[in-house]
């Protein structure tokens, strides 16, 4: 049921009238939340940005879900990046010390190697993720959308009572 719903959402998302730019921006912002530890203060800001900016919320949700699934695999890498930034890069130390002594800033847990490492990584990958997803949506809509729509499995899924039911429920909501 969950996976059916999930596949339906992706299908709906890619076939929606939203522009590739909106979808890509939503996806890129969602990837930040997905890659970094969920319960962090900076994620509250990203959430607000997703709601306030004219970006695709389903694309952001999709990115959060996908990135969250695989983020833990990169934890050792994030730890490495965070440790190097916090401990090894000497010229940044006064900045971290200043930040550590400021109110509110420590609540972001920037002093945690995985939090900082994942946040910096997600910021660096933000632009490439944005463009990659944008070009993927364009390419999909131009070359793949029709073929996917004609796939038997898609017809079965979209024609199934269950999917129609899900669709109805979603429309009503």
């Amino acid at each position, binding site marked *: 049921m969950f996976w059916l719903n999930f596949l339906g959402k992706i299908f709906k998302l890619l076939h929606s009238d939203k522009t590739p730019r909106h979808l890509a921006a939503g996806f890129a912002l969602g990837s930040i939340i997905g890659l970094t*530890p969920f319960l962090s203060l900076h994620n509250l800001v990203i959430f607000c940005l997703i709601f*306030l900016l004219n970006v695709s919320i389903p694309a952001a949700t999709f990115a959060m879900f996908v990135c969250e699934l695989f983020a833990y695999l990169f*934890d050792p890498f994030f730890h490495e990046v965070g*440790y190097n930034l916090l401990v090894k890069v000497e010229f940044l130390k006064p900045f971290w*010390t200043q930040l*550590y002594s400021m109110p509110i800033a*420590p*609540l972001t*847990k920037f002093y*945690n190697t995985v939090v900082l490492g994942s946040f910096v990584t997600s910021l660096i990958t933000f632009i490439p993720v944005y463009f990659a997803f944008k070009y993927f949506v364009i390419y999909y809509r131009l070359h793949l959308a029709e073929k996917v729509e004609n796939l038997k499995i898609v017809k079965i899924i979209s024609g199934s009572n269950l999917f129609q039911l899900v669709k109805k429920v979603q429309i009503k909501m």
Partner: protein
Amino acid sequence: MRWKAILVVIPLLIGLLIGLFFFKDLMIEWSIVNSLQTAIGAKVEAHPVHFDPFSLTITIGNLQITNPNNTWRNLIEADNLKLGVVGKPLLWGKTVIEEINVEDLILNAPRKTNGKIKIYRLPGPLGAAQEKINKDIAEIPALNPEVLKGNLNLEPLLARYQFKTHLDAKVINGKLEVSKQKWDENLAKLQETKAKIAELHQKLIAFQNQPIQTAADIKPKYDLLNSLKDQTIAVQNQINTTVTGYQTEFNQLKTDIDYLKNSALADYHALMKLAKLPSLESFNFAQALFGRAILNETALFTGLADRLQTMVPISLESPPKEKHPRGGQEISFPGQKVYPRLLIKHISISGRSTPDSKYKGYYAKGVVNGITSEPVLYGEPMLIKVFGQAPNKAYLDIKATLDNTKPQYRNQIYLNVGNLPVPEYKLPENKFFPDQIGSGMAKVNTDFRLTPGYYLIKMKISLEDLVCKYNSKISVDDLIAEIIRETLSGINRTTLDFQLESINKKMKMKLESDLNDLIAARFNQVLGEKLNKFKAEIMNRVNAELEKKKQELEGERQRILAEGQKKIDEIQGLLDQEKKKLEELKAQLENKKKEFEGKVNDLKNQKQQELEAEKNKAVEEKKKELKDKLNIPGFFNKSTASPGN
């Protein structure tokens, strides 16, 4: 921009804050319970918890921390705890508790429910030590009287036993054989020297037969003699090398034969084991029986040590990288007015219990200062000084200094427990321990020290007025179990000295007790004479086998040695003859040389005399000639000198 989204986001945030406000107590309770349970490894209950956000005070109605070593008792139980949280550091994400006041506190109070939670085997060296102790109990020897009766008959035992002495003697015999073959070859080579000696002999004969005609023959003869002497020395060296090697090898074999006594000792122990007669003198029964229980008692300290040694930051400036910790590694940046992430400045236990409360009769007084997650940042050591007493006069006295503010941290805890009723302590279930301890008091003195890479726990447990009762029968007729039971039933006091030392994660445990001697003595009392006789019988038999094999081997060694020596002596004899001959010839040559020298001297003297005579004659003639010349007339007129002038 979706400005309308603000209408959604703001109510959501307000909803979130309202939710937080209503569920804050539950969240704080959950966080207190979970963090304490993780640290202690037993059930922790804290209810009701109330957080007043305006006065920043947390009130805990009742706090119960289960004793992880006896989950039917609470380590601490307290009512009405008030925690005063300092507001400002919360903005930095830091929790600083200025003071916790405890008025009603019970130590070691009984629990209504079992406070056990599922914990896994302790990791690391302590886990390994636990494993070893588990094996120790299983290794306590079992002794069935029927089996013992059968085992006290030596012949059937010997019939199924292969003596190590025999096997090792066979090995040495093999070595003797190998050595004999090797030295037969070496001695055969030495036989070749016989030919050299014969050749030398011929040369000496030839030397002797060549007469010395003139003095000029002496020098070549000397050279020849020296050359023959060199050959003799070479042959002697060869013999000496052979003899030294031969004797060294056979002396080594003698050492091997002497070492057979070790094999005999091994035979003795093996036969004792086969007879299932344990050597009780070397078995640490106290460790096997009580080691596990005491080791578990130390879990609080070892856990603390493991945690401190992995957590305590050596350097805040550039802390070493942890091996990918789950959830990341938190780095501190010390600066001005930087708080530790958690700090409880002061806990005071007043010692004033509420009248008519359930805590009547309990007494606790003390202070705890400086509990913190980052001691280096706080800069002051943690000090604990607590005394607690139960209505039954059982007391607990803790004095501790945990100074983790410097890289060379030092922690020291003294913990004394006294008047502890032993019947309340649950012994591990096994056939050796009593089903019930009727009465008894325990006193435990613990000294725990921790420095980087090292910790030491010393625990002295004194048990007094013990009355051990056994209700259940032992299912098998196990003499050892019977003896242990008898010993434990018979004692009314004992002491256990336990020491656990960890150096760079390598753990060493020692448990000493008078129980070991008591059990061994009782064992000797029960089986006494019979067992000693049997032991002596085994020892005699083993010694007899040893002597027999030693004699056989030594005889063979001596025989081979004598054989070889005979051959060497024969060659040495031949060489000695030639040496003697050589010396004789040398003496003859010396004599001949002297003879020639005499002749030369005579000739020299004769010639000298002849020369002297000729010289004198010539002088005389010259004188005469001069005299004649001087007699010429008128010659002396020119001079007045006499002819003698």
